């Protein structure tokens, strides 16, 4: 199977508002794909549709040959996403939360804690492992949200502006981490406004405002 994501004439509307104008795209793994476009062009809606959280109004969308369906365990195993800020446990340290994510995917507890420390180190926040979420800055929280997402296995990763609150060095770090995952065979689709990410992506998909919205 070469094509991982296929959208044909995919569009989303809510009553009279067009959230995503008709869009067609094909994305094959492994690749890092940058989803670009002005605010309101439907980037987040497209990501939500690919994640199975939004039903299309028209057209179709296939992930590995099947529509995204949250009730299908195989789909949940294949697709990870970071679209909204994920909920965090108030009374658990960052390491404990990351370890919980890892054991829920089958790692044993000792390996999960080691893996959690490594993920934090890759994201340059190793020293925060024993802190609680409320002790973090906005940028650190964004890095932790990325760590939670990257702690689970996936074939397809959907990210919505992962560069939020991050400085230039951290954005570069993020790009190299994503490229590492691509090297292991993943398909990553990320909505972004940052030129660094767009320039280093394997493919760029630009969304345009619908004629009706202009």
């Amino acid at each position: 199977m070469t094509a991982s994501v296929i959208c044909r004439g995919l569009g989303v509307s809510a009553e009279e508002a067009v959230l995503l104008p008709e869009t067609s795209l094909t994305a094959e793994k492994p690749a890092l794909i940058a989803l670009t476009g002005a605010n309101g062009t439907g980037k987040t809606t497209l990501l939500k549709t690919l994640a199975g959280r939004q039903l299309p109004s028209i057209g179709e969308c296939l992930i590995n040959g099947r529509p995204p369906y949250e009730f299908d365990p195989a789909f949940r195993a294949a697709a990870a996403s970071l679209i909204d800020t994920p909920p965090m446990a108030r009374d658990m340290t960052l390491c404990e939360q990351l370890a919980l994510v890892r054991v829920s995917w089958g790692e044993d507890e000792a390996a999960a804690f080691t893996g959690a420390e490594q993920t934090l180190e890759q994201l340059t926040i190793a020293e925060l492992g024993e802190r609680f979420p409320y002790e973090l800055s906005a940028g650190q929280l964004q890095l932790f949200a990325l760590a939670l997402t990257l702690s689970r296995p996936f074939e397809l990763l959907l990210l919505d502006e992962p560069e939020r609150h991050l400085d230039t060095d951290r954005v570069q770090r993020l790009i190299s981490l994503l490229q590492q995952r691509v090297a292991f065979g993943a398909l990553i689709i990320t909505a972004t406004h940052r030129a660094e990410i767009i320039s280093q992506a394997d493919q760029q998909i630009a969304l345009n405002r619908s004629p009706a919205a202009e």
Partner: protein
Amino acid sequence: MSTPAQRLKAARGIHLGREGAPTAGDRWFSLYLIGFVTAFYILPVVYVVGDFLDPDFALQLTQPQSEPVITAALTLLAVAALWTGRIQGPVLLTPFLAHTLLGTDIPRRRVLLLPTLKAVACVGMAAAGLAAVGLFALTLTGVWDWDRFGLLVAAAFAGGVQLALLAFLGQRLSLRALLFSAVVISAAGALGLVFSEMRLATPAGWSGLLWTGGAAWPVAALALTAAAGVILIAAIPAALDRLPAARVLNQSRRISEARLFTSTGSINDAVELFRSKPAHRFHRVPVTAGPAALSGLRQDLISALRSPLSLLGAAVLVPAGAALLTLAAPAAGESFQDSNLLATVPLGVAGAVLLFLGTGSLSEGWRQLKNEFDAAALFGWSSAGALGRRLLWPVLTSGVLTTAGAAGVVVLPGSAAQWKEPAWTLAVTAAALAARFFQSMRSRNIPVEFLAPTVIPGRVDLSAVKILLWLGDGIIITVTAVLAVVVLPLQPSTLVGVLGALILTVMIWGWARTGVQMTAGPPRPV
């Protein structure tokens, strides 16, 4: 690779070891508190109530004539449970666990089954506990023996489990299916008031037979249907596997935030979380067309139609509250009897609370009233005109819904209520609206002076009481108005005077809190 069960156990192990585990102190303290309150407060009070209760009145409560009312109340509870599930169902995990575990490939049924069954059992136990307290008092009067007490408590447990299962349905079903189920149950309940056979078709309607001293088989039927429901949830994979993660996560987040707000005393912010979001409708309806005096009515109507579920909630809660108040009203004033207090006070208070909650979505337009007052002073509009515009919708709709609920009770065959009782109910509705107005006008921040200690003789500090009064002022005003009607042995004219004064005082106080006087006019050139 470990099995889904092992993965789940390991994840829960980490969570229970860190965040989710109640400490030994929590557990023992909770048990101590429950035991202490039961032994030293609930049992003595219930014993005294049972001793005080007039046996003739107790017998009257358990006569076959009361069976339709019991069944109708249970049907109302069933519909309420169904709708409660839409807002907060029994499937509940902490937001972090819900997000993490529902995103894995572990079957959802495996993740959600244990918390769901625990919640269902807890609701059943809470229902049994509450029922046991009330039934204990009735049993002391000798209307039935202790065997019947045991049967009724068992029926309450099974009925509580059924209510929790209905809440699960409310959480699981689509909105259309939920509306259909609510209409079918309500219709069965309404028909049960007329045709006794229909009572067997209502959820927990069989308990009515048990209440009036019939055979014991309804307990077995209740237990069997409750057990069947629990088994179906566990056995049908789709029951929990097809529960949308977003719904569970939204409810988990909301209840978690509401708990946090409540723990810091921000009840208004906690309630705000449960307001329904407006739908995209009527964007092109001109709000300035037609008579200016009706513009507020038109705006409020459009706002209400944009949140149809809130409007539906008001359409259910206000008539239900009015019906309960009308049932309680005949005991007020001249026909007042001590023993009837045990029935009329809970009925009246429940009616007042339902009425107050129901008027919430009808008086949404008052949220903007303070801004309109400010704008009136700035731009030279009439502030009294702004008030008049915004009064129309809440007053009209509350009046119509209250009259509908009260009239429903009056026309019931064998009802003790006459046409003067709806007048009482309308007066209480006016008090509830006045309380709403006061709540909308006052600041949402607790005044600093409320935090200062208020020490009375005996070195008792009442500052916490002041804060509680501030937080629950709307309900307190409404319930006080109802208690004034139900409890005080006054003549109707005096009661009208008391209620009128209460409403007037609350309205003037609310108005004064906005900082805008009735006489405020346009700024004049100096």
